[in-house]
């Protein structure tokens, strides 16, 4: 069975290197600051205890006062998975660094989140809308659209 690493499993392995980027007092989920996302992802991919070589799923949820991005990672070699989240406060001009150079699979998923939710990813090679046309007013999957 795929071992699902919970927050209690991950935090001790992260805390010495990334103490300041983890939001340590959230309850169940592991929250990471947006600015340090890139280093944490590289750590997840390369550290021999994690070896998370696949970005399984990248999703975004619109809680009215903040947006939450959920990164689901998968390690095929060790058959374990991990989840962490990133919170973006506010609703306008949301930016977060892109992880395309860590996992190529984030390419299309980040474009979809930009298209439907309006979160911009910096350093993305092709930050364009993927389903809707250029010039479409708004971002449909937000809670205030329709």
């Amino acid at each position: 069975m795929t071992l699902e690493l919970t927050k209690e499993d991950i935090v001790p392995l992260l805390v010495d290197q990334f103490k300041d980027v983890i939001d340590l007092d959230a309850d169940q989920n592991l929250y990471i600051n947006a600015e340090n996302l890139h280093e944490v992802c590289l750590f997840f991919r390369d550290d021999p205890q994690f070896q998370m070589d696949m970005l399984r799923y990248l999703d975004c949820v619109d809680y009215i006062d903040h947006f939450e991005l959920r990164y689901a990672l998968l390690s095929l070699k060790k058959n374990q998975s991990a989840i962490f989240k990133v919170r973006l406060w506010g609703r306008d001009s949301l930016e977060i660094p892109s992880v395309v150079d860590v996992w190529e699979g984030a390419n299309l998923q980040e474009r979809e989140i930009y298209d439907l939710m309006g979160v911009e990813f910096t350093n993305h090679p092709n930050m364009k809308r993927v389903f809707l046309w250029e010039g479409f007013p708004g971002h449909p999957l937000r809670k205030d659209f329709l």
Partner: protein
Amino acid sequence: MNESEKNSDGTESVLLNLGPQHPSTHGVFRLRTLLDGEEVIDVEPIFGYLHRGSSKLAEERSYTQVITLTDRLDYLAGMSNNLAYITALEKLTEISPPERARYLRVIMVELMRIASHLMGIGFLINDLGAWITPLMHMFREREKILDLFEMVCGARITFSYMRLGGVSHDLPIGFEKSINEFLDDFENKIKEYENLLLGNEIILSRMVGVAPLTGERAINCSVTGPNLRASGVDWDLRKKDPYEIYDQIDFEVPLGEKGDNWDRLVVRIEEMKQSVRIIRQCMYGLPQGPYRTDTDFFVRPPEGEAYGMVEAPKGELGFYLVSDGTIAPYRMGIRSPSFINLTVLRELCVGWKLADIIVNFGTLDINVGEVDR
């Protein structure tokens, strides 16, 4: 992509638009290709012609009504979509189905896998130029599978068969006989297809060695499903993270070696054979009992979130459900395998010829309904 870029010998590249209305029946998509003579320099797929906003629509419907939305994602493999959604919902509500329902689910999903692979292979050979002859033969088998589905739940494409806590209908009288007839006949048919297709020199010369994809690159691009297994990576959710009753069934996972078009074709043919094995074991061990547990009409799961995934014929299909305690989901996110498999299309096509673009696209087995959701 700029058309007037000069190449090294002074000629200009040609921007060719393999447009939305395409004779090749994969669905409505558009491929902007930049060509230097016959060689492909750049490929940009443009999708969105079939975007129906399933995630947004799901926020207005009750959990049971969303099942009908999930049918229409990958419309050629409706049972797998239903199962993925119900897996996520059962994780959220912590209701588990009875044993008979689990066996029935696996039987239906494996039949669906056979049907989907038949379509995928058939349309691939159609794109190669064999004017729908193998496709028609494979349609004949798919018709038998769809007849079996119609016997069970009354529908041929949009099944909505799975329900929270079980399945919607039990097997009718005469189903066991029909499915055993079908399975016996189908094993002979697979041998026939192998003889016809796998020895043909033309198919060999267009598929062997064309567009290889290494395992590490496939993992980095989040490719899953038969495409990943064709590149040599041993990752099948049915073995690594078993759901339903897959841990009690004996089957193998075929692996390719180089990840070229040939491997992707052969892996799908072998998977069909393994599906036949699984169905036989399930029919043999099918327990008696209820096929559905009682649930509320409007399900109100506790607040929380869950991610449920299955090994769909096209890859790993996952549903991410966030619930806020009401009768409709707060957010339904769909991890669609076809959409994510498209990440790798560009590097499969660049450097090969124009005639290979469609073939490479066909071997990835993309369903546009799933890409666009």
